[in-house]
């Protein structure tokens, strides 16, 4: 007779899914983006990403007094995402400070994973923008040097397509799609970002609603109100989609589970809100880009969205066939 039978409540079987597994999958999803940014910007990209990830993991491990610096993997994700929002030629200490800020101010002071209100990576970025803005959002950006790993990318510079009409017209949609243009590490290649997004959708880690609504809203607003400066209004809409951080934000930032709604309608409204605010800033604000601020604003509204979008339970409306 076996007398060490475990007694616990049903269900007695579970998926083998773990928080760590989810985080590892997000890292995998970022693989193509990482690859493209290294191809385009060489060792500087690799350096920035490595510093950001290491700093984030170290900060978290120290805070939690844990030896395993990878932990549940969420710090690595935060660090890498932060790096994605930085310019390729940024000074090495910028990602370090940003990551530590992201982990400590963005996450741990709230009580760690699951409890933070704002996307930690974006908190890190926001603090960097406010404190060392000139290092981040200068008018001049390095031109990518594809396949030159040791290239000194700051030698030739350009402006990002979002900086103004003239710059925009200098970049074709296909250039934007592939990513061969100036911009932050993780935002230049739409192709790589979409690939990662598809993987996350396939694995069930993100719901289509947030990126779908975000992207859809940006395109719609760009088409309706962006003017026809980029050939015609539809291509202007596409331009707004592909240039800047919309895809990175929509696929990897706004979908951060902890800081976005859990209800289906909440997700949809969240996505629309992100798109709306992004475009209001782009079209009518004084900054060329608004993704960070848009997502942070919607993060703040998340508890409210959840509260008012509790789904209708099964059988609430009597249906008689």
């Amino acid at each position, binding site marked *: *007779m*076996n007398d*060490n*039978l*475990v*007694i*616990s*409540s*049903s*269900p*007695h*079987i*579970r*998926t083998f*899914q*773990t*928080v760590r*597994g*989810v985080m590892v999958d997000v890292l995998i999803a970022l693989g193509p983006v990482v690859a493209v940014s290294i191809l385009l910007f060489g060792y500087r990209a690799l350096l920035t990403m490595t510093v950001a990830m290491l700093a984030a993991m170290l900060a978290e491990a120290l805070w939690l007094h844990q030896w395993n610096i990878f932990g*549940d993997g969420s710090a690595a994700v935060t660090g890498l995402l932060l790096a994605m929002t930085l310019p390729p030629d940024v000074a090495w200490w910028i990602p370090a400070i940003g990551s530590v800020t992201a982990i400590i101010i963005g996450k741990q002071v709230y009580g*760690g*994973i*699951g*409890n933070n209100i704002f996307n930690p990576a974006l908190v890190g970025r926001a603090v960097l923008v406010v404190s060392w803005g000139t290092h981040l959002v200068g008018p001049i950006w390095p031109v990518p040097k594809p396949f030159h790993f040791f290239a000194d990318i700051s030698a030739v510079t350009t402006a990002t397509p979002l900086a103004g009409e003239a710059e925009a017209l200098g970049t074709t949609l296909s250039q934007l799609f592939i990513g061969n243009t100036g911009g932050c590490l993780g935002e230049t290649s739409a192709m790589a970002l979409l690939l990662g997004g598809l993987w996350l959708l396939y694995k*069930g*880690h993100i*719901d289509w609603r947030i990126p779908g609504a975000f992207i859809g809203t940006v395109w719609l607003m760009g088409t309706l109100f962006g003017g026809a400066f980029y050939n015609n209004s539809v291509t202007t809409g596409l331009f707004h989609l592909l240039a800047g951080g919309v895809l990175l934000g929509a696929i990897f930032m706004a979908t951060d*589970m*902890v*800081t*976005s*709604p*859990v*209800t*289906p309608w909440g*997700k949809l409204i969240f996505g629309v809100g992100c798109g709306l605010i992004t475009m209001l800033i782009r079209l009518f604000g004084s900054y060329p880009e608004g993704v960070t601020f848009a997502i942070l604003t919607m993060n703040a509204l998340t508890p409210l969205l*959840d509260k008012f979008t*509790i*789904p*209708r*339970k*099964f*059988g*609430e*409306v*009597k*249906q*008689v*066939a």
Partner: protein
Amino acid sequence: MAMAIFKGGVHPEYRKELTASLAISVAPLPEKVVIPLQQHIGAPCEPLVEVGDAVKTGQKIGESEGFVSAPVHASISGRVTAIGPYNHPLGRKVAAVTIESDGQDEWDGQIGPLENYVECSPEELRDAIREAGIVGMGGATFPAHVKMSPPEGKAIDTVIINGAECEPYLTADHRLMLEEPEKVVIGLEVMMRVLGAGKGIIGIEDNKPDAIRVIGQLIEDKPALSVVPLKTKYPQGAEKMLIQVITKRQVPSGGLPLDVGVVNHNTGTAAAVADAVLTGRPLIERVVTVTGEGIRRPANLKVRLGTLVSELTELCGGLSDDTRKLIVGGPMMGLAQPTTDLPVIKGTSGILALTGEEVELIESDTCIRCARCVAACPINLVPTFIAQAAEHGRFARAEKLHAADCIECGCCAYVCPARIPLTQWMRVAKAEVLARRKG
């Protein structure tokens, strides 16, 4: 034809291959049976026998005055050796009658078929079903005759037989449909007659194509009956899901299937009804799947009610040393047991031994708000919020979040990557909310 589906649900590993192809074998007559006086939802029975009495197989040994109740019968012939509390699959001790076998299996002479059941009145049939002690055999154990007595003014047009068997591992219903399909069909026809329902539907998950075929052939020339293949997805066999998928009707929150003109019964229940009218024999045996990685020789067994689980596990080669969990029922909704010293009852569809690997008691993490539980809940609840409310004792909030509607299917806890025992919290919340409503 595209199959209708319900929202949410999960796709666990089904593991039915362990027993799906094994024909039902009849377990040897037990030396001793322990028959709990309560094997159903409702009023417990009072014993009709005393210690020392001789009893015959099929003899009624427990009865209750209550309408929501079902009598119990001796499942072997022999002598009553004890009446008193005994381990029960529901976790507490329940008064039970212990019978030691005389090895004869001599049936009660009064038992005989209903004369020409096709011409019996609905009332006669219903009484026969009640007398036979038939309850929901899928595990819910709700007395069958009660479900077949709809209140005045509620017309029932459809009877559904639940052949989904969506719980992983279990194959008892599957084998029953393959090996005794006539009984399932006759049981269904009797129920339709009792209820005056014009339509009878047998819903079977599409991972059992052989059962769909066998039953389909059997009812070919019966226009009132049909087989509906169901998508294999847990909890397809949950009453509300099944009815929605088959009839497109949603059982209202807090309501019953008969509110939408439907009564549904489990496959085993239908077969028991057929037995009751064809032979007059009460419910004294059932098919049990004994399976799991911890069982050396898994099997589908026809066993007398009251047979001890320990006897069945021995029969199947014993529990392996690494068995860590013993479950009565399926892995999603069954109950973990501390011992094998407990009887098979009317609602015991399976005995499952899981080994260490599957059991893994891992500490839970904080909720990462991944919303998997929300997507998985077939009732459209937000399990993570209700669990949080329950954890903090905020039951008014739990009620507002519809905790009382939870069907305890286990999908939320199944998918949670943080391994939060969500279903357990749902039960806490639901019990508390219902208790408060009663005041």
